């Protein structure tokens, strides 16, 4: 059903294969957050890997920054319908975090946890194989608090709420445990190309 009198601002056709359905391009970088922006001093920052409730490895800021770094330029897609192309990140691949911890994923799912109480769930297959990182830098600069600094998850092939800001740990879980937004009506997986915005989409 066409909406009376609506023409719309069509996206450039050469970009059609990069803009998922229902999304529109932005040039700025919108900030969304369910609560206050946490300010985490680097000398207090910690990253913890857990298997179920058990911590198995922790890194402080210096130790984490000593891990191998990888650069990634990716398009990102927010469930609120904005997309931003060619965002440039640098951080530590989840593969490299696991390798340094000497851990083979013991389960098929992971919950990412954040300062401020946020969490989000992901299949292991979506955070390994070079698909995801803990990002420390954006466009060549340390990541700002508004965008999740000092460290955020980057899982660019899923809606951006999966790229948890202020990340401070990964927890392997036996089941696919819904995280913060997934408990509040958002899709358990969140593939922008299938428009998996809300539960039942």
């Amino acid at each position, binding site marked *: 059903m066409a909406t009376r009198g*609506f023409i*719309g601002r069509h996206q450039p056709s050469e970009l059609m294969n990069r803009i998922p359905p229902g999304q*529109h391009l932005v040039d*700025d970088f919108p*900030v969304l957050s*369910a*609560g206050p922006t946490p300010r985490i001093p680097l000398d207090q920052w910690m990253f913890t890997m857990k298997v179920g409730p058990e911590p198995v490895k922790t890194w402080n800021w210096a130790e984490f920054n000593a891990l191998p770094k990888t650069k990634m330029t990716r398009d990102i897609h927010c469930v609120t319908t904005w997309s931003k192309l060619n965002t440039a990140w640098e951080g530590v691949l989840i593969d490299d975090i696991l390798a340094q911890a000497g851990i083979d994923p013991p389960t098929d799912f992971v919950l990412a946890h954040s300062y401020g109480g946020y969490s989000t769930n992901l299949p292991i297959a979506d955070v390994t194989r070079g698909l995801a990182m803990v990002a420390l830098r954006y466009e060549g600069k340390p990541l*700002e608090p*508004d965008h999740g600094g000092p460290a955020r998850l980057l899982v660019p092939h899923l809606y951006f709420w999966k790229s948890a800001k202020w990340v401070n740990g990964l927890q392997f879980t036996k089941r696919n445990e819904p995280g913060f937004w997934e408990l509040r*009506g958002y899709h358990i997986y969140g593939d922008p190309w299938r428009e998996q915005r809300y539960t039942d989409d």
Partner: protein
Amino acid sequence: MIDTIIATRPAVRWQTAVVKDIITRTPRIKSFILLPSRPFKFVAGQHVDVRLTAPDGYRATRAYSIASAPEDSPQIELAIERLEDGEVSPYFHEVVEIGDSIEFRGPLGGHFIWSRIDGGPLLLIGGGSGLVPLMAIIRHRKIVAADVPIVLLLSARYWGDVLYRDELIALHERRDGFTLVLTVTREPPKRDGDYGRRVDTSMMAEVLRRVPGPPRHAFACGTNSFVNAAVDGAIAAGTPASIIRTERYGGV
């Protein structure tokens, strides 16, 4: 980010609503009174997704908060600010007429919500059209929870930009536990106890002193920079970060 998780699933089926009325609220904000074809219940603070479809199938979707109280169902009010470089809001302001049919789905959103059972006191902080989801809370409170104290700090550029100004001032004048504090950033204040500057930490400390007891919940909605300034100020004045929920728009 403490909240109650609503058990209902989001309403993802698209439906239509007829535009019953259009009300100019401020020079940049119009209200659209919609009558959905399938009426629904919602919680104050929730939003709907509106979808416009061009003749060639191109679609644009945007989220708009509901301004009306759940008790006003079946009709809902969306208050939409016209964004100069927008794609959907200019359509609403320039093309939509009474009697038009609009496609939408909802209610959606399970975090920035409040109902009577959640209790108070409440600290509400709104910047510009960020008032909209807070207005649903304020109207809900007036109808079913008038014993819950609310202090609303509302920021606007000019007196004429203050959304729902007359309704809010009338509610304040009832002196029944709803307190309106305005800050108008580009004009001198007009009411006793109001401000004429951007929100800052000392303003938040003073506003918090007007809440009868520590707030149980705080909600802040507006541009990212506004929300950061207000929320950082509230935290500096002793409000626990864990009781503050935010909804933001705009980039940095």
